[in-house]
């Protein structure tokens, strides 16, 4: 009997893969997709225009991609860990030389069928790479200088390539993804505390090295009324939109702030503002709950996995997704300075959705193949 179970779980029949699926997670992702489409429809002014159509296509393509990824055994994803990281590093270098410039930043690379933003993908693939790196490592070696230096190089290399684009926000998010892996891998908590302290102490010096527009963002965050029609405009209008939503919101397609174009970047970074204006506190909390369930499921999947790699990937990815959501929301609610960071799935943008879906796919694969051991 025992033998039999071992065998079947190792073989992972197609039918069984379906049975192993985390339908709650899938449902939540689909629900989120639906909400994001509705919100996108609202940003288009209640019509199915370019953004809605494009978002819909991307969502469908990428969710299918996620399903395909989840059917591929987790051990193959383990195997691809370093290679995929290097490919993306290559793409980032390619972006540096042949990238497409838009609004003052060279972030995109033309891959003939898609304009890809490799930095977005790096947010996920750095987790994959580091998870593989720590998978076989003995606990005593985790805190060795060699290990920490190597992993720091793995993190700093893409960060540097993204900073020069320039795109400080994404590079910080990449760092956070990487650091999440280090945390779960068991790097001594003292290092985190020292790094944090060092960061806080060196903050004034960092600010001194920031570009003028970045400095402006920090200053604006500290006091949005400094320049209400200039740098402070986005955050003031965003807060007005959210605040005026009230308990139940202004109603679907009735968000005056976005409809009358007071909201900047409403398709991308500020999509939550629009949602919050139209659906109010109740809607926003429901959206947060959906995200919470997704993250909970990711962590739960991690807990159910037998392989250390899958565990570390799921935990780190869950933490990273959580940080992405938190940073985006804190930003639009005026709790953090404005850094370019999309809201996963909700925001318009192919690369971000692709990266998130790949992440979900690998998590789902870990779930489907949760008994898979990786040597």
């Amino acid at each position, binding site marked *: 009997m025992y033998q039999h179970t071992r065998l079947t779980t190792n073989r992972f029949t197609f039918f069984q893969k379906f049975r192993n699926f985390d339908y709650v997670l899938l449902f939540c992702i689909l629900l989120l997709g639906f909400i994001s489409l509705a919100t996108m429809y609202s940003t288009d002014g209640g019509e199915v225009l370019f953004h809605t159509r494009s978002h819909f296509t991307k969502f469908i393509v990428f969710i299918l991609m996620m399903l395909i990824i989840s059917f591929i055994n987790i051990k193959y994803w383990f195997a691809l860990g370093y290679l995929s990281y290097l490919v993306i590093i290559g793409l980032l270098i390619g972006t540096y030389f042949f990238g497409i410039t838009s609004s003052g930043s060279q972030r995109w690379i033309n891959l003939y069928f898609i304009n890809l933003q490799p930095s977005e993908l790096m947010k996920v693939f750095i987790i994959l790479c580091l998870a593989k790196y720590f998978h076989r490592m003995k*606990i005593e070696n985790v805190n060795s200088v060699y290990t920490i230096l190597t992993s720091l190089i793995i993190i700093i290399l893409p960060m540097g390539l993204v900073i020069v684009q320039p795109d400080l926000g994404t590079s910080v998010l990449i760092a956070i993804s990487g650091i999440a892996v280090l945390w779960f891998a068991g790097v001594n908590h003292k290092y985190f505390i020292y790094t944090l302290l060092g960061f806080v102490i060196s903050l004034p010096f960092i600010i001194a090295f920031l570009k003028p527009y970045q400095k402006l963002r920090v200053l604006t965050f500290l006091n949005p009324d400094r320049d209400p029609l200039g740098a402070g405009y986005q955050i003031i209008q965003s807060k*007005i939109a959210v605040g*005026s939503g009230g308990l139940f919101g202004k109603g679907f397609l009735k968000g*005056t702030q976005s409809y*009358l174009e*007071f909201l900047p970047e409403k398709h991308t970074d500020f999509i939550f503002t629009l949602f919050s204006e139209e659906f*109010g*506190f109740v809607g926003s909390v429901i959206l947060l709950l959906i995200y919470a369930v997704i993250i909970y499921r990711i962590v739960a999947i991690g807990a159910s996995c037998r392989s*250390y790699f899958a565990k570390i990937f799921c935990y780190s990815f869950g933490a990273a997704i959580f940080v992405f959501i938190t940073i985006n929301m804190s930003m639009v*609610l005026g709790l953090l300075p404005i850094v370019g960071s999309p809201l996963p799935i909700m925001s318009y943008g192919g690369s971000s959705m692709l990266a998130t879906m790949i992440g979900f796919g690998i998590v789902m694969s870990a779930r489907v193949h949760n008994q898979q051991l990786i040597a």
Partner: protein
Amino acid sequence: MINSSSDNVKKLNSINRRMFITGSFKFFIMVGIVSRLFFLQVKENKKYLTLSDKNRIREWKLAPVRGEFHDYFGNVIAGNFEAYQLHVIPEQVDDFRYVIYRIKDLLELSDKEFKKVLKKKNQIKPWETLIVSDNLSWQKFSKINNHLYDLNGVKPVISISRNYPFKENFTHLIGYVSQANQNDIETTESIKKNFVPGLKVGKVGLEKTFEKELIGTNDIERYEVNAYGRRISQLEFQKGKKGKTLRLTIDTEVQKLANDLLKEKAGSICVMDIYTGAIVAMHSSPSFDPNLFVFGISQDEWQLIRNDPMKPLVNKTLQGNYSPGSTIKPIVALSALENGIINTNFTVKCTGKTEMYGQTYHCWKKKGHGYVSLRNAMKQSCDTYFYEIARKLGVDKLSATAKKFGLGEKVFGDLFEIEKKGLIPNTQWKKNALGKGWLLGETIITGIGQGYIQTTPIQLCLMTAQIANGGHKIYPYLVVGDDKKDQPIDKYMPLYENSKNIKIVKDAMFGSTNEVMGTSYRSRIDDPKYQFAGKTGTAQVKKITEEERELELKTFEIPYEQRDHALYVAFGPYKNPRYALSIIVEHGGNGSTTAAPMAKKLFKLIIDRHKIRQSMDDKRYLEI
């Protein structure tokens, strides 16, 4: 293997512990975000809702409808008319160049006007209204309407604008409106409050004085706008109030006659009710068409008005400081009587000239009048007689009486900011103003209204009215109803010591007009219904040299600006006086030949219209 498995256990313990730490961390941050949402959306909701409305709702004020001016009989003398305008909203036009050139052709705009329009277009935002033309003729307006099919985004608009139907008749009285400038907005609260671009406000005259009452309140349109200020939809329309309509005491017929009489001349006519102080007519000539200013006067027209030697921009009735000449004589006589200097029997021998204090003073009649009493002296306007009584009276007593009768003071108080005070000199004044002592010779010429003394036509009219009503103080007014509010306590108070003296002066004025030898005898009306009494005046504008006196030049032989001013003051009907008037014709020559005949025509009309005027009154005149 044991080693590796214990390592595995350690790793798992570590990762699970950290997973739980992270989990609780996540929980707290989630709570933080939810509380931030709660703070913004529930606690501060009202504040942000207000801000959001402030964002999306914008008010547009429309120009208020200005109150009208009516004359005493309800005729509109400053009203509103529908101006045909052409508006273009540049962003609604597909091909602005094409449309604007098409309009240029249709309206036959000159290059200068066309450039102005293009300049205006560059100053406004593309969704704001460009006023291509603010006052089109009906022909052009209909022409545009016929071509609308190919003028996308062009809007023919009917807008309310000021209109003065009687053109130059009321210009100095009512003034005119024109586009408000920065100064108007800063100094006048009501303009500031109701300001919209293109608002027209009173610039002079009563239009300016009563700005607050006339301006009305804006119509307000509330629109939902987007972040760029473009209107999305109208939410509300709030109708404003039209400004107050002011009814004046003026009789347009009399005013028109005054205008006709002074055509081609420079001067002033004012007519006043002697009991109420209601102004029946008040005209200054030459005048100009105030409609020219409503849409902005052209440079050429402005230069024409500004450089006219007869000074149309000056309101001579209120701003003209003239020597009163012989029209001051009733006051001199009254002052002498009141102060007991003379009585009716006092006579002076006039030989045509008299020498006093080493100076020769001439009477206007070279041969002299012989022995003249007060009545005769007034009748024939004998200068010698008045030299003598002025000398006896002294300038200080004379100026006291003159001031009592309203000379040297603003007649309308604050009503017109341009009004001049005139000047009634006395010894104190000269010491203060010129730092010199008064000379007796100056008293003598003051007695015939020359020298320092200066009066405005409206003051002379008031003076005459107060003599005519038996010597009672009145306060002239222009807006119906103004006589009923805050009445000064000295209203109707007697200005005389002895009412007999007033009667003597009035009788002398009667003689001057209605008896043979009287200076205005030729302008008399015998019908007692129209019969009036008056006093002529001829004011010198320069000192006459002895040689000129010998030449005895006729008026037309003297250069225009050196000719005497012709004056006339009168009241009528004599039996039961009701109206007083003053006439001044600048450089008109002689009071009796130029000014007095105008009085004849005026009295005919004024008295004919008295019945109609009375029928308009809801209340009988106060009888004294």
